[in-house]
């Protein structure tokens, strides 16, 4: 197995093509694992403490070995960079056709460094790479950018597929995402802000080459077996119809929803509590853009008869709202109509901004207004005019989305890196402490689900390498009370009981390793979630990986591969000065009792430290500092990484002279408050 690597330095305009050797796949699997290594290597030569918006930051797109091979597990591309909003390790996944089109063009990884003197886009056409002027695209939203590039580049030698940023990325908003083919956002960590800081508007790719498979017959057999397994899975059929949206009603019953900046744990609006949108809205195209046997994705169109509010958006097309788009719109900001929720999803996608962080920024300021902690005059100072800040008011919300995306007023500037940094800056500005109303976990990243009753979920938010997030550790065993899975994983049902702390830290550690494997194969998480034992990444998916790459492993070795990748992400953050105290969550989650639902009264603090201790134990890290130990790194064959950490005084129990790194985690350059 070898991979194609494209390196582009936008400062010098240099383009280099290299090969990723087999040995790197042996060590880092592929996909996110190799991305992580490319970033690690980069920051051995560049200052890891660099401003993420500076030319020294790196922007990596990578795709795993299982992408584009017709296996039906779904394809996910991965972006990796230093996060401009949280100042720590950043990465983000996204589907669509872009990832495998990159492979068909001859590359698996694209590394962009430096900064172009003016807006550019990168055109990759079967290994021919050109840096093109993007002045005409600057200022456009993601959908229009994609359409213009499709027009411009045509359908030969293949259709054109794109990654682009919208206005938020152009303005280097920290929480800006990167959008695939104009409609599927890589939302987390702020990749759009990094692209914007490099004046890189888009990457367009065309390719009609193939992908080398080590054992094609083996892969065909595997793929056939996988399809048959999924065919017999009735839950997969249900998931195809709704995607993750079925979670709204489920969370309503287990108390997992998030309402009005998490002042509540249950949605209110009758309409958005149901899955009426499936019945009412017209699905005009079913989109499985991702080599996926499930195909949960689809495009919908608002016709105007669906609700009174829908009349405002007649003709608007949108990707169906996923659970988190709904949780941010209907939950965090209390929008109560499906057409408005869909519109929220559409505009955040088009401006290219993460709706998790943004909804918590908007929810924060709405809550201050609701509690009369800010006056009408304060509001005018923030927005330059009166603003109702009424919960659920879509017109108001749309203005606030523009304020942040275009950086047009103090609210936009303050909250460009999300709710935590915005709340901190605003508290400093006003000389008052508003932090108890800010929703965040590690790094200051926000998330719109109720955390307090779910100890693994809560721990995931505190330790995820890219900052508070659900997709690194997954709360599968505890949140869904999977005592059966707990027995299979740990020999006891206790991890499936969310009311006790036992094995909750262990769940984070083990599932992070599995997720790291899936992300490194470059496939979707959902198939695995539908049947975690049958589709285990270290065994069943591992067989497909072996057929493609020729790299054979025992299941134990594959779990170590996943663990190695998690340790590399951790090591990068340790170099930045992150320690145990940074593995934390916000005050509301930690100390404020869950206000309603079946888990009323629960607070995270009851179990937080115990679960975190257990997590470090399972990881083999030092509980006191949260740092990695040389012993663990050596077990994983990471002596080289241990040496770098030791030189930075970022490994447990080894204190040396040399660079003393222990800085406060910080977002890049505080924007300050303009006069």
């Amino acid at each position, binding site marked *: 197995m070898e991979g194609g690597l494209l390196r582009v330095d936008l400062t010098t305009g240099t383009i280099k093509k290299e090969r990723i050797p087999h040995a790197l796949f042996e060590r880092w699997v592929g996909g996110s694992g190799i991305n992580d290594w490319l970033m690690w290597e980069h920051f051995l030569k560049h200052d890891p403490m660099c401003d993420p918006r500076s030319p020294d930051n790196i922007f990596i797109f990578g795709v795993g070995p299982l992408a584009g091979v017709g296996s039906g597990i779904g394809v996910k591309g991965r972006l990796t960079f230093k996060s401009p909003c949280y100042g720590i390790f950043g990465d983000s996944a996204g589907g669509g056709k872009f990832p495998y089109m990159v492979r068909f063009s001859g590359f698996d990884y694209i590394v962009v460094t430096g900064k172009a003197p003016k807006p550019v886009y990168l055109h990759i056409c079967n290994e021919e790479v050109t840096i093109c002027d993007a002045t005409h695209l600057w200022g456009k939203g993601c959908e229009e950018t994609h359409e213009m590039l499709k027009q411009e580049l045509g359908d030969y030698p293949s259709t054109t597929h794109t990654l682009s940023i919208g206005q938020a990325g152009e303005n280097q908003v920290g929480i800006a995402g990167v959008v695939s083919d104009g409609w599927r956002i890589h939302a987390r960590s702020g990749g759009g802000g990094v692209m914007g800081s490099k004046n890189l508007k888009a990457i367009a790719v065309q390719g009609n080459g193939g992908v080398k498979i080590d054992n094609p017959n083996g892969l065909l057999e595997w793929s056939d077996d996988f399809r048959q397994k999924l065919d*017999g*899975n*009735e*839950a*997969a*059929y*249900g*998931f195809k*119809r*709704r*995607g*993750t949206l*079925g*979670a709204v*009603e*489920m*969370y309503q*019953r*287990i*108390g*997992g929803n998030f309402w009005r900046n998490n002042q509540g744990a249950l949605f209110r609006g009758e309409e958005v509590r149901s*899955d009426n949108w499936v019945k009412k809205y017209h699905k005009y195209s079913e989109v499985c853009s991702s080599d996926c046997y499930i195909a949960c994705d689809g495009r919908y169109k608002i016709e105007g008869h669906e609700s009174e509010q829908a009349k405002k958006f007649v003709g608007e097309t949108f990707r169906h709202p*996923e*659970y*988190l*788009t*709904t*949780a941010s719109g209907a939950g965090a900001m209390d929008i109560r109509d499906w057409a408005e929720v869909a519109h929220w999803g559409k505009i955040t996608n088009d401006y290219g901004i993460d709706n998790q962080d943004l909804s918590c920024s908007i929810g924060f300021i709405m809550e201050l207004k609701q509690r009369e902690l800010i006056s009408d005059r304060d509001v005018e100072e923030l927005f330059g005019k009166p603003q109702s800040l009424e919960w659920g008011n879509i017109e108001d919300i749309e203005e606030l989305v523009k304020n942040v995306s275009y950086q047009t007023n103090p609210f936009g500037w303050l909250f460009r890196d999300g709710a935590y940094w915005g709340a901190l800056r605003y508290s400093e500005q006003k000389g008052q402490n508003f932090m108890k109303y800010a929703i965040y976990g590690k790094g200051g990243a926000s998330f719109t*689900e109720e955390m307090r009753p779910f100890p693994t979920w809560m721990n995931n938010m505190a330790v995820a390498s890219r900052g508070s997030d*659900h*997709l690194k550790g997954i709360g599968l065993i505890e949140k*869904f*009370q*999977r*005592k*059966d*899975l707990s027995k299979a994983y740990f020999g006891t049902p206790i991890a*499936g009981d969310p009311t006790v702390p036992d094995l909750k830290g262990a769940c984070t550690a083990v599932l992070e390793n599995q997720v790291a494997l899936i992300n490194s194969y470059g496939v979707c*998480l*959902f198939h695995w*979630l*539908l*049947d*975690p034992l049958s589709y285990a990444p270290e065994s069943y998916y591992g067989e497909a990986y072996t057929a493609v790459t020729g790299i054979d492993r025992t299941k134990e070795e594959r779990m170590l591969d996943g663990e190695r990748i998690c340790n590399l992400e951790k090591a990068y953050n340790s170099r930045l000065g992150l320690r145990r105290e940074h593995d934390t969550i916000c005050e509301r989650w930690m100390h404020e009792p869950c206000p309603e*639902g*079946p*888990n009323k009264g629960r607070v995270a603090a009851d179990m937080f430290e115990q679960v975190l201790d257990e997590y470090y134990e399972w990881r083999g890290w030092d509980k006191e500092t949260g740092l990695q130990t040389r012993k663990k790194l050596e077990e994983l064959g990471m002596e080289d990484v241990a040496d770098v950490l030791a030189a930075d005084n970022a490994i447990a129990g080894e204190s040396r002279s040399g660079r003393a790194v222990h800085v406060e985690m910080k977002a890049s350059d505080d924007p300050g408050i303009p006069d």
Partner: protein
Amino acid sequence: MITVQAEYTARFKEITQITSETIQLEQPHMAELAQILTTKYGERMEALLIDPKTQDLNTNGTLFVDSTGRRLFIDDTLADGETVSFMVGIAGG
């Protein structure tokens, strides 16, 4: 004899074509409720409800809870007047 309320969401709602119903059980057992539902709604319901490998309630991609939000397994006992919700158990986005 006890009475329970069955509530259906998502795929369960499509199969049953209703959002809830009242069901009488001879024995207060989840196993009996599952049996009644598979008989009444046929193969698709059975495929969603029962794991053929374990003959327990299917846990993959589904979640069945009582009114306190506690997950139910086949050998659980139900109280008279209990509400059982049949849901999909997958989230994200």
